């Protein structure tokens, strides 16, 4: 038998450490309380309110991101113009922004005394301490996850498909809807899943900008924090639900990715020149 090198042993130990460190807290979440207790805790008003609010706000935010982000990403992917790389950097910035700083930045811009906040207030739109404010915060932090992925997906669409569509009499809008989006669909869906996952877990920017009012701005992550001192079981139950949803999202991204690769394999020409 071949002797294991010292380095092999050390790296195997490192890997074991990583896996244990990452999985023990997640497993404990479910081990701490039985399923019955978790289910009962979820029935509490504050937990139900928070989950429903999370579901509602993240889905609205996701719709906004898809509606605006998809054509924007398409333009960035298919054209070269001055300032394109600046635009892409700007889009990526919220990815590395500390959430608390993002919340303050939103207040500075859209708050009552903010740069454009007054104009928004005059128009009769209230954001701060409102559900709409939650959506704004979610869109701000989650949209880069989708747009980045969408740009990559559109860039990898074969340009000749776009050209072919145009020569077949389709204008730019029809080409976008009938050819570009279906061809980029796997990348677009995984981008949407990532953005949704990020929005579900959003905490800092929402707290800073929209506050933590039960039923109005208190999303599931905020409720977990709020319940922590008073009702550990409910806090635990909400966390378990979020973990389950996040895991489901991750799994769907992986499955979509696998389907995409299978399509590529299938797409190879059948003929072989001899």
């Amino acid at each position: 038998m071949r002797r294991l090198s010292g380095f092999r042993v050390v790296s195997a130990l490192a890997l074991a450490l990583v896996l244990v460190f990452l999985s023990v807290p997640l497993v404990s979440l479910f081990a701490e309380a039985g399923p019955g207790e978790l289910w009962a805790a979820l029935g509490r008003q504050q937990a139900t309110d928070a989950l429903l609010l999370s579901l509602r706000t993240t889905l609205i935010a996701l719709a906004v991101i898809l509606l605006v982000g998809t054509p924007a990403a398409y333009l960035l992917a298919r054209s070269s113009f001055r300032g394109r790389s600046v635009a892409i950097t700007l889009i990526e910035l919220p990815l590395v922004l500390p959430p608390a700083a993002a919340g303050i930045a939103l207040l500075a811009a859209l708050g009552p005394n903010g740069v454009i906040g007054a104009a928004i207030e005059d128009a009769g739109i209230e954001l701060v301490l409102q559900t709409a404010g939650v959506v704004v915060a979610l869109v701000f932090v989650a949209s880069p996850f989708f747009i980045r992925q969408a740009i990559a997906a559109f860039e990898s669409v074969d340009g000749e498909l776009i050209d072919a569509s145009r020569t077949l009499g389709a204008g730019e809008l029809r080409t976008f809807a009938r050819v570009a989006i279906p061809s980029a669909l796997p990348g677009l869906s995984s981008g949407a899943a990532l953005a949704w996952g990020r929005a579900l877990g959003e905490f800092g920017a929402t707290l800073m900008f929209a506050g933590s009012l039960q039923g109005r701005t208190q999303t599931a992550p905020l409720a977990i924090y709020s319940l922590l001192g008073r009702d550990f079981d409910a806090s635990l139950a909400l966390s378990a639900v979020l973990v389950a949803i996040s895991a489901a999202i991750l799994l769907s991204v992986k499955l979509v990715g696998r389907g995409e690769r299978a399509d590529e394999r299938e797409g190879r020409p059948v003929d072989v020149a001899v």
Partner: protein
Amino acid sequence: MLRFELVNESDGPPLSLETTLEGAGTLAVMGPSGAGKSSMLRALAGLLEPERGRITLGDRVWLDTASGASLAPEQRGVGFVFQSYALFPSMSALENVAYGIKGGRRDRRARAAELLERLGVGGRAEARPARLSGGERQRVALARALGRGPDLLLLDEPLSALDPRTRAAAAAELAAVLAQAPAPAIIVTHSFEEAAVLGDEIAVLDGGRLIQRGTAAELAARPASGLVGDLAGASVLEGEATAGRDGLTLVTLAGGGSLLSTDPVRGLVAISVFPWEVTLSSEPASGESAMNHLAGEILSVTEFGNRARIAIATPQQLVAEITAASVDRLGLRPGVLVTAAFKATATRLSPRPG
């Protein structure tokens, strides 16, 4: 009549072309990589905007950079067959063809089914492109390009992705489809044989310029440059032409040797000699006739079927095509000294820039 002038100088692929296409004829376009063949097709389709240019089809103006007129690709009415076919992967063959057809859903599907049937792939209507063979994809792509009833057909190497065994048959079918189509067609190809089968005329491009245009026979008979001779399948030698005896042209070959030609060209020349006009013998040259003789060592012997191609270092490389039986009879193999002979009338000269 299609009339176009395309000029691209500073940015993008170089182009400087002007030509016309009468009636519903087919023009085959040849040239080395980067000659501007695909750029020409893309500019005609509106997928590439030249710096200067004008494209008119009949009395319709597709492009006129002088007046700022430029129709979008979807407004031009071209049928484009891409080299990779560019079939939409998420649609069936039928949906691909129906995509370009105008009208109601049922009419479009009926017309698409009819086109697929006509091109011999009616049975594959529901298959996705990934499930089609190369030949089937080519037919679906052609059906899709024909679907709109285009005013101009553009085909970018439509046969290059095919298996060589099916390629000749596909070329003949394509020629029949193009002959039936009421629109003029421009087809890019790398093969002189295909160009001869598919095109009423052949245009040769190099560096974005039109070098020569004519029938396959005209191009082979008097290639305007060494490139044209090479594309037509000739061995191309280099030399310098001066006046010779009997009103013939005497060509001194670069690297040694001389030839006689009936072509009245002077100065630096490219000499095109077709392999099937060259005979070989193991005897040294005898005599005086207007026959050209070049002796040299055999570089390679390539047999295919009952024929063989012999490359000879004269010292410039000359290729002779002879029967496989002659190879055995003369004992030809690499390293053997032979004498190649061909007529002065088969020695085609074209001027060569210095």
